């Protein structure tokens, strides 16, 4: 088994109200020095093997369902290290 990670983030030019809300809460908790926060989504896909065909398929999944290309960018990678 292998785990493929898809990270989805709002495009830089798209307003991210959730990230802004998180950023706004930090000083109230005493955390200063964080100049910006962007909030995205992380998907973990369990697959039989992370071969080329599967990765191409996950890329299509990411482009059609997991992200909206109008407002979001995505990145696909295979999780390295020992499985959980």
């Amino acid at each position: 088994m292998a785990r493929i990670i898809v990270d989805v983030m709002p495009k830089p030019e798209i307003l991210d109200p959730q990230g802004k809300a998180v950023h706004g809460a930090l000083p109230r908790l005493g955390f200063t020095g964080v100049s910006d926060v962007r909030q995205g989504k992380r998907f973990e896909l369990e697959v039989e093997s992370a071969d080329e065909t599967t990765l191409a398929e996950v890329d299509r999944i990411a482009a059609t369902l997991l992200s909206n290309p109008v407002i979001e960018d995505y990145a696909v990678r295979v999780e390295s290290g020992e499985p959980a």
Partner: protein
Amino acid sequence: MSARVGVVTFPGSLDDVDAQRAVRLAGGEPVALWHGDHDLQDVDAVVLPGGFSYGDYLRAGAIARFAPVMTEVVAAAERGVPVLGICNGFQVLCESHLLPGALIRNDHRTFICRDQVLRVENADTAWTRDYSAGQEITIPLKNGEGGFVADAATIERLEGEGRVVFRYVGVNPNGSVADIAGITNERGNVVGLMPHPEHAVEDLCGPGTDGLGLFTSALKNLLAA
């Protein structure tokens, strides 16, 4: 004979019954359509109602887009059948690529519910012919993710082709680019808007009857065809 207007119910739709009622008050015959069916029951027009289809999981409208009935709605829209998306329905139309752009969380980060003044910018779509261009109407608005965004080229094209159908007047309630409240496709048969015309069809409830015009426009158009 009256025109038959289908109203799709997804899991999490809230305003499907109100939309059916609006169709009836406008003189049409509402037909309940089910998200899981590959069947539009030969309706003459389709309304995608407001609510939180599939709990707004992933993104508002993202999962509804892949519901079986949407295959038929997309095909019908491409044939020229009038399709109206209200609030969550607008989000579904954008996710389905029947309309350009996307709806994101309101810039002020809160849910908003108010009677909203809109200006009808395009009175030549299947859903707005009973209005006149420049007319101001008041209908309820209620959303958490109503900020319309698109890249600069898309906005320029929408503005240049007169495809902005409704614009917010007075206040911009959600951070939408260029105060855009509703848009149409190139052909003018698909219209999406965030405010809820189906909640303004009777004097007893809501701010008046300004919303009825969308439904009568489509019906008049269908009977004339």
